[in-house]
């Protein structure tokens, strides 16, 4: 292509302008804010849980507290791996146009769906370890495990209720994300039939 003709074509494309639908833009910005809040929450949890367990292990350097601190740091590392892996490339659109915003929203939905599976698995591991640790240190640990798990104290019952609520939330969130993803993929296909391939 002639150099000036090429520049003219680019100039036309550059000045063609683009509009990002307001609701899409708001959705992306709302999600960005939530991601930032989530990141701050993760940092706080790391400081409180990791720092707290480390301080405890330092003040009572017994094998059990050291083990607890080490495992908590292991769980935190796993959680951060999930957070960083699935938020990679999901902070900013690649350009300020509608297609890039849809791409970003699709990427975020897919990241969230994958993160849900890992979060559920990690939560189960954490609960299993924590309950095991508490059971071993409980004065009632001579009770049968099942009796202890379900009928020993209100605190353990609250853990189960929280677990139920957490998994209820995950199921609702997963459904919500899957519905949004289906809608966005359809929308994306209408904008560009081949666009979905690069997001896979």
């Amino acid at each position, binding site marked *: 292509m002639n150099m000036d003709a*090429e*520049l003219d074509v680019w100039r036309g494309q*550059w000045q063609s302008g*683009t509009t*990002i639908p307001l609701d899409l833009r708001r959705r992306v910005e709302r999600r960005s804010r939530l991601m930032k809040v989530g990141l701050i929450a993760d940092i706080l949890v790391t400081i409180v849980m990791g720092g707290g367990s480390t301080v405890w292990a330092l003040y009572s350097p017994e094998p059990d507290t050291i083990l607890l601190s080490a495992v908590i740091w292991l769980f935190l590392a796993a959680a951060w791996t999930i957070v960083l892996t699935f938020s990679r490339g999901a902070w900013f659109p*690649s350009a*300020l146009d509608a*297609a890039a915003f849809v791409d970003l929203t699709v990427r975020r939905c897919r990241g969230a769906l994958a993160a849900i599976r890992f979060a559920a698995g990690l939560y189960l591991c954490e609960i299993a370890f924590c309950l095991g640790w508490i059971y071993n240190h409980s004065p009632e640990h001579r009770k049968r495990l099942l009796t202890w798990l379900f009928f020993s104290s209100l605190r353990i019952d609250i853990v189960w209720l929280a677990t139920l609520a957490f998994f209820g939330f995950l199921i609702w969130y997963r459904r919500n994300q899957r519905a949004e993803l289906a809608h966005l993929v359809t929308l994306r296909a209408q*904008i560009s*039939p081949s666009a979905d391939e690069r997001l896979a």
Partner: protein
Amino acid sequence: MDRAALEQHFDRVLAANGAALTRLAASYTNTPSDRDDLLQEIAIAIWQALPRFRGDCSERTFLFRIAHNRGIAYLARSRSQVAGLAEEIEVYDPAPDPESGLAQEQRAARLRRAVHRLPVAYRQVVTLTLEGLGYGEIAEVLGISESNVGVRLSRARQILRESLENRK
């Protein structure tokens, strides 16, 4: 210039150049809210500078110089973008094959992405060229020589071409 005349002048230049300034602000930012913030900063800087405009250069050159200076100030504040000031990044566009999607908007979007990924020195020259400024005006806006504009533009076009052709 009295305040009413200044306001009138300000409204006129913004109306005439608003779209170009928006595109220019977008080339420095990653999100619409950042772009709007930068655009607002540019508008304030223009408002403050307008009384000093003596017609030594064209009005457009004057506006773009202010806008680019604000853009650079924005990059200086935004650490994630500063890397682009010095290093020459590889421009790879992960967008789909342009010949398969094929709406004009798709090609325009791809071009905007490729421009956005250029090192800032090239990005400035390209955005001004695409806004229709000549070598002399670009040299005035950026405070570099015309031959330097030519060199940067030539290199920038090569990178853009490679980036866009990679997907064919």
